[in-house]
């Protein structure tokens, strides 16, 4: 799955060449699935397999955040709370109501999607920093509510969340769990590609750039804002549920603090805000860097915050954007040269 990044820029004039592109895409996906299927077997130890699971969960999370923040341009700081809602819903359903994972996960996704619609309501009236503040307020109240609620484990958290089982087999190793997470991550990425390349993706980008012009072009701005929040919440809910059921099956309100949100923002911004690959690249890079620098925990947030600021200032399109610019610009420079600057 490597031929996707610059596809958006492929000249539509060459419609005749579409079947070739389709075959290439299919091949890319097959190759991608192949590599991903054997990846955990190449990992040297169980910790690396845990890291693989974590990366994929973060990919799901970041891809979702990129939809609402990167594409639709809604500055939300509430994404981590949506993940918490997914995780807690799934955990409560599994531990208190005996839901199997396969039922807890979709239920959690549903509940989180609803919560996403609510988080999105302030976006009808607020923009930019104000929207960030409003969503931050919502997010923190979710976390504080959890920390203070005994039924939700309060500040102790929830333990012994059962892992998924398949045909009586408990998927409680990082290796077996990988085969739960990986297909979901892959599906999530595939769906995001489809969404973002369709009308919906273009509507998101249009309302990010100029809501007024988008509305005048016939786009229902409130509908698409809500849709962006709900879609991103679906991803957050799924990631939350996956994180909850991963061995050792433990969740704690401190996993959903502002620091985690900053890390999440870093993934999207560094990977390429509004780039179709942004969340994916960012989640991989940041999760690995985060892990490598665990020993310097005290400085992590400082550095991450600085990297965010520097990225926004000096490479606003992130890694994805740099790759794109390299490929795309060269084509246009050639075109410009050939054409001269008309009009």
């Amino acid at each position, binding site marked *: 799955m490597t031929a996707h990044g610059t596809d958006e820029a492929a000249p539509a004039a060459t419609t005749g060449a579409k079947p070739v592109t389709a075959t290439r895409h299919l091949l890319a996906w097959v190759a991608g699935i192949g590599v991903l299927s054997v990846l955990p077997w190449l990992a040297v130890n169980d910790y690396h397999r845990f890291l693989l699971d974590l990366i994929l969960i973060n990919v799901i999370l970041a891809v979702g955040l990129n939809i609402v923040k990167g594409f639709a341009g809604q500055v939300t700081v509430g994404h981590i709370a949506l993940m918490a809602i997914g995780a807690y819903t799934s955990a409560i359903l599994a531990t208190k109501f005996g839901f199997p994972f396969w039922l807890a996960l979709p239920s959690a996704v549903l509940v989180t999607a609803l919560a996403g619609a609510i988080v999105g309501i302030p976006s009808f009236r607020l923009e930019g920093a104000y929207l960030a503040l409003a969503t931050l307020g919502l997010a923190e109240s979710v976390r504080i509510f959890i920390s203070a609620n005994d039924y939700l484990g309060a500040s102790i958290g929830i333990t012994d969340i059962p892992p998924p089982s398949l045909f009586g087999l408990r998927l409680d190793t990082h290796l077996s769990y990988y085969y739960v997470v990986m297909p979901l991550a892959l599906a999530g990425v595939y769906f995001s590609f489809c969404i973002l390349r*369709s009308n919906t993706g273009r509507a998101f980008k249009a309302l990010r750039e100029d809501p007024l012009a988008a509305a005048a*072009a016939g786009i229902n701005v409130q509908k698409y804002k809500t849709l962006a929040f709900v879609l991103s919440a679906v991803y957050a809910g799924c990631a939350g549920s996956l994180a909850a059921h991963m061995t050792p099956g433990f969740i704690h309100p401190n996993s959903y603090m502002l620091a985690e949100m900053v890390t999440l923002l870093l993934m999207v911004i560094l990977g390429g805000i509004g780039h179709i690959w942004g969340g994916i690249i960012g989640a991989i890079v940041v999760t690995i860097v985060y892990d490598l620098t665990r020993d310097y925990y005290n400085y992590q947030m400082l550095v991450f915050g600085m990297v965010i600021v520097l990225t926004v200032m000096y490479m606003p399109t992130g890694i994805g954007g740099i790759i794109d610019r390299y490929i795309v610009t060269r084509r246009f420079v050639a075109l410009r040269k050939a054409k001269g600057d008309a009009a």
Partner: protein
Amino acid sequence: MLLEVTGFSKHFGGLAAVSNVDLNVEEGEIRGIIGPNGSGKSTLFNLISGVYRPEPGGTMYFDGENVTNLPPHEIASRGISRTFQMLRIFSQMTVLENLLVGHQRHTRYGILSAIVGTPAVWAEERRMRAEMMDLLAFIGLADYATMPAGELSGGQRRLLALGRAMAMRPKLLMLDEPAAGLSPLNVDKLLETVLSLKERFGLTLIIIEHILKVVMDTCDLVTVLEHGEKIAEGTPAEIKDDHHVIEAYLGKEMKDADVRAFLRG
């Protein structure tokens, strides 16, 4: 009557940007709107396109339907399309994507099938892209289809704004100073493009334009605004000889003869 606007008003603070304006436009007509700077032309467009709500008392019918107070996207979906004086193209999106956004209301697939990426979606996307490429070719921007719109030159941006408005396949197209800032040669080219689009798609047009020659040469009827009020309406020939218009444009001091000479270009 395709468009029937009655009693539209809009104040900004104490300033009456548009006051009690009626505007009736026949199907197939080309209507010009002129007036000095700040006379309320763009505000009138904003009222018609739903960007601003008219003050109570104003009504608007389009194609026989009462569309008063509908939000902009609803107005657009009825077939009223507009350009902005400041263009407001989506500069980070490609030229082709700009048109596709405009064409959105004609898409025949839902969100769910888009998420799954069914073959029907791909087919529809191909149809849309092909159609929009046609339109791009028509306005002369086909070579720039995959270029970010922000990289276009000023004249090309004006064309793109026109193209995006046309991508909606509107019944009524409203252009806010489409030729502003163009060289005389490009003004003629743009005008030609607009007129051929009108022919090809059977449009009704409302054009705000400062370049009087454009208005006088192309419009069937001209409406003149001053200080938010409609001060005259008639054929270009009638407008040319209207005292109010002459005063509005050039102040009372100038002699009528000079003004007529000016208006005739």
